């Protein structure tokens, strides 16, 4: 049966719990380009430790850690390696590369970037928030090496060369970089004293263009699949409540609010197609439902039986759309201690 917004049973979609880790909230699921692999994080709040896992949509995740070698100190020989830190912010490369990049702490509790067993960025100052361009040619990341937060670019074919600084907006830190689908440019957030606003870098050699100019926070932009729009979260100054917005990718475009009160996802809003997105509505009475909204403003809840939903990941497959998310548990479930990872399949009309 198809509604205006999806096809499937009206009562509830089939939900599969694929992972849980004792003592940790699972978060930030992320599908590889072809949907055959799924990454997620386990957040041990009490120990301030984040573990990273990569598995399949059916589960069976394996923990991803920086290699022992990357934690060694060449000129010092044997020195302490027993170090549990943070590994997080995984970003997938396109399918043909069969790789991903992630950020993890080193011995000095500084964050470096890793690809597989290799540290690709080792520099004083935290490096993270990496995003791999859809064509595989570049990795953009945020770094505090200069003292401010700036975006840097790695040319994957010259991965041994130092990264190139892409942005240096005065009195602002640049972060939350996201690639346009054609890999020619990217959008990001400039975090300044007067607000966090969206900027657009149309080309990698060009100058950034400011897209929004608001006093609140505009966060986690994400391009629509056709690259014509950007969806993001924004709030009013001083408010903790964020809403979902969309705007055309051109300076002076007027943002449109699609959904009030959403739960912010670190990967940004999840586009289903060129005209609709999935988001988690911040509605306690409805157990924080996952909703589909269109750019025209239509909304409907997905019939999921999970509660306390967070962090959506979406990938298109041959048969439809695969969705992963984290949730506190299922409505009739007994366990609601730590957030778990769930998946389901959608068919779009």
């Amino acid at each position, binding site marked *: 049966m198809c509604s205006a917004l999806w096809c499937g049973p009206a009562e509830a979609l089939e939900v599969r719990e694929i992972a849980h880790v004792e003592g940790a909230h699972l978060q930030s699921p992320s599908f590889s380009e072809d949907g055959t692999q799924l990454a997620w994080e386990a957040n041990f709040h009490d120990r301030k430790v984040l573990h990273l896992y990569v598995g399949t949509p059916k589960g069976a995740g394996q923990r991803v850690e920086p*290699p*022992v*070698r990357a934690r*060694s100190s*060449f*000129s*010092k*020989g*044997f020195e*302490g*390696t*027993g170090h549990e830190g943070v590994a997080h912010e995984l970003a997938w490369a396109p399918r043909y*590369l069969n*790789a991903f990049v992630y950020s993890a702490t080193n011995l000095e509790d500084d964050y470096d970037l890793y*690809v*597989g*067993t*290799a*540290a*690709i960025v080792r520099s004083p100052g935290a490096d993270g928030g990496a995003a791999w361009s859809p064509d595989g040619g570049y990795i953009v990341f945020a770094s505090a090496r200069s003292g401010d937060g700036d975006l840097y670019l790695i040319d*994957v*074919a010259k*991965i*041994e060369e130092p990264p190139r600084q892409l942005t240096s907006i005065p009195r602002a830190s640049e972060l939350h970089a996201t690639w346009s689908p054609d890999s020619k440019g990217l959008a990001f957030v400039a975090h300044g004293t007067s607000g966090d606003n969206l900027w657009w870098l149309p080309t990698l050699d060009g100058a950034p263009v400011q897209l929004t100019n608001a006093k609140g926070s505009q966060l986690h932009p994400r391009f629509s699949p056709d690259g014509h729009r950007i969806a993001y979260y924004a709030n009013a100054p001083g408010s903790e409540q964020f809403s979902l917005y969309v705007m055309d990718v051109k300076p002076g475009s007027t943002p449109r609010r699609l959904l009030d009160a959403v739960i912010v996802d670190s990967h940004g809003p999840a586009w289903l197609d060129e005209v609709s997105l999935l988001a988690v509505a911040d509605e306690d009475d409805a157990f924080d439902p996952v909703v589909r909204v269109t750019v025209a403003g239509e909304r409907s809840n997905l019939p999921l039986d999970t509660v306390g939903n967070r962090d959506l990941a979406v990938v298109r497959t041959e048969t439809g759309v695969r969705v992963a998310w984290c949730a506190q548990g299922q409505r009739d479930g007994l366990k609601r201690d730590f957030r778990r990872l769930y998946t389901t399949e959608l068919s779009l009309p």
Partner: protein
Amino acid sequence: MIALFLGLALAQQSPSEADYRGHVDQARFFVRKGWYADAAAELELALADENGRLDGSAWYLLSEIRYRLGDIEGAMQAADRAHSNSRTDEELELAAGFSAWLRDQFGLVQVRTRFDGVQSAVEIELQTLILDPDLKLYLKDLGGRLAEPATLPIEFGLPVGTYRINDRDVEVRPHETTRARIPVRGAAPEALQVTELEASLGVGLWAGPAARGHLPGPAGRIGVTQPVGPWVLGLAGDWTTRPLSTPDGFRSATDLGAAFRVGVEAVRFRDAAIRAALSGRVARIAGLGLPCTGPASGVACAQGVTPTVWAYPNSLAVVPGLELSAVVLDRRRTTAIGWGVRLIGEAAVGRRPGSGSARMGPDEIPFTIDDVDQPFLLGGLRVLGTVVWAR
């Protein structure tokens, strides 16, 4: 006070332990300077010590240094020793991790050409994408080292992937040795700074008034040539036997000489080189006839006399010359046999002996030569084919 504590600390170590630690500290200093070969040498001294041999951290440092030097197999062996001598779980993890990384990320490649002993540059083109900056830098360093011609076969470690090595496709698999026969590259004649032994045979001729009646005859030479940078130095001993037309019929005259030469390789094309050299030779030239007259007890010789007898004394001459040679030699091999052609133009400046004795039948007849007829000048030409053995 610090010196006192340091002295006490050193006093508590056995002399051997202090010695090997000194080498390790020196190695660490060299590592900080980037002098990896020196660091490896220091560590090998440290690890030759009976206490040093049990120091896992020294083995581990050696394994990383050998990796930096491109000696993957040596790095693996040292990492294994570091693993065996680890004292804590952390050391164990580190050594095992590095050893596993080397085994997973590298394979060994042995490249050779059709003949062993050939010198060639080895050009490595990566065909797959490598996402590890360390591996890319390793490849860059290795490529720089192999750009200089080396004597093949050689073996080196390469990150797992596919490559073109001197235009041959090579796939490198983890912890496997791949053997590849490659074409020779980067032929550099200077690369073959080896001694060439040569044997030449051809034709020689003297021309000039003093060499009247001389005909072209077989000539030979045995020499040694040593390229020194762009210069070519040589020593040779030579011989020529020429037919000589006399009033009594044909006879033969044999010259002997010793020569040196200094030259350059003027033109090079692939395995061929054209060399130009200036040479100097001291030669005994035979058969330069003079008419003589007088009784059998002693004749006097001079130009223009009506001869009753002809004398053909041996004369000493200094023979400067210009030598052009074309040599074809597989110059990328340290041992090779080649061939060539030599053209030698020379001038002999000499002086006949003032007196002597000449054999006439069974008798020796003394002769004297008028002073004015003693000096002579000859022009000479030799064309020789040469076989060269370079080693």
